[in-house]
């Protein structure tokens, strides 16, 4: 976390929404999920002004995941769900109780989704799966991670702002695998208005998190 903060300072990044510690497991066990969440909560407590936490769970372990949500979000310091990774696709019925918990506490879900030229992994969501989930839960706030995974060919920032509106686009670095820099460049280097960049770089996420931050007594 010290390294992350050092890089954040160099690039003017105020806060992280942190998830998953540094596990590279594609199919973690409940014990590993718990370990990662503990790691994130330690980081959030050590750097309360620089990071919020997001609970790492999976519809593959529904009962455990609901308990973990309660432990980390309802009763703990975390303020979001995700990234929901590739154990199960976003349209499976096991996502419904997770979505209901998210709606009840007004926290967003960060959902992994891709459209890979070579085909997705088994259990890996496509954007179409996320659409199904969204249709079943119209009040659920979903952040689509990786922009469908087809950034360079399909969506670039100018297209995202044109087609979705700047209010629907959020800067996410995927740092660890990626750098802050390469993803930040997609916003700062884009031919979009400065007001759109401000929304993307902070205001949109702030708006999404405001209900849960207020409920927990964090400053907004």
């Amino acid at each position, binding site marked *: 976390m010290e*390294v*992350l903060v*050092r*890089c954040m300072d*160099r*690039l003017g990044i105020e806060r992280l929404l942190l998830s998953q510690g540094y596990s590279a497991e594609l199919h973690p066990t409940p014990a590993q999920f718990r370990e990662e969440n503990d790691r994130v909560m330690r980081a959030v407590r050590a750097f309360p002004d620089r990071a919020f936490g997001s609970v790492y769970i999976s519809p593959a372990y529904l009962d455990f995941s609901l308990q973990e949500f309660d432990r980390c979000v309802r009763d703990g310091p975390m303020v979001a769900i995700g990234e929901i990774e590739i154990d199960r696709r976003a349209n499976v019925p096991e996502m419904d109780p997770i979505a209901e918990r998210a709606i009840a506490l007004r926290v967003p879900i960060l959902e992994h989704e*891709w459209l*890979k*030229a*070579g085909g997705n992994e088994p259990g890996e969501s496509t954007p179409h799966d996320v659409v199904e989930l969204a249709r079943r839960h119209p009040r659920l706030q979903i952040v689509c991670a990786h922009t469908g*995974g*087809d*950034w*360079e*060919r*399909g969506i*670039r920032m*100018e297209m995202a702002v044109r087609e979705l509106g700047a209010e629907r686009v959020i800067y996410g670095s995927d*740092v*660890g*695998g*990626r*750098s*802050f*820099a*390469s993803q*930040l*460049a*997609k916003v*700062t*280097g*884009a*031919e979009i208005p400065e007001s759109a960049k401000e929304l993307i770089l902070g205001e949109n996420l702030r708006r999404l998190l405001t209900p849960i931050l207020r409920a927990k007594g964090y400053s907004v």
Partner: protein
Amino acid sequence: MIVDANVSLSRWPFRRLVGDETPELVRRLRKRGVAQVWAENFDGILHKDVGGVNARLAAECRTHGKDFLVPFGTVNPKLPDWQEDLRRCQEDYRMPGIRLHPNYHGYDLREPVFRELLNLAAERRLIVQLAVCMEDERTQHPLIRVPPVDCAPLPELLKRDPALRLVLINCDPAIRQGLLQPVLSAGGAYCDISMVEGIEGVARLVERVSPKKVLFGSNSPLFYFESALLKIQETGLSESEKDALLEGNARQLLAPVAS
């Protein structure tokens, strides 16, 4: 100031890009403090008339950025009379180097023709840029899926030809294959930073392979130019390391060709 060693002119075949008109690209790069650009022509990736591709590249550089845009012509050794294309690059267009796309042009680095091409380029003191890939395989057009270049033969080829000066660009696959370090330590080889990823990725790369072996390259306009620039900002390199990476290494590499 900055020397950007990895820029392309004309059209990326699969979408329009901000900056795919040369005057606009030149304006944007100058505004960001770039003093010199090593430019290829995107057309060279898929077009078969390589002679035409290189003629257009030379004209475009002369018209829109004399002394700013430095052309690197395409050579495809699978096409007839590629040696003539190489000759024209140097003698007719005064290009200091060439750019290769072995994966898009369909040859393996173990093929004898590749060695012949490297030998000729070294004899002519041309810089050889080898694009390991152009984009993430996962996001390619479904009908044109091109795996990255297998760089495994390069260390041996470099050892055999110490005069060769080779720049690996878009080298993320080589890093993942664990081949970048062996290539760069084998001889006159360099790499750019356009696809280097991870926290402080550029600093880690410089530490592993020597600050003298890394060039600033943006892969612009396919990538946003700011990506490479912000990676430098993220790293916390010393001022002398930054100067070498942003400009000094490229100028030094170009010097024997220019003299």
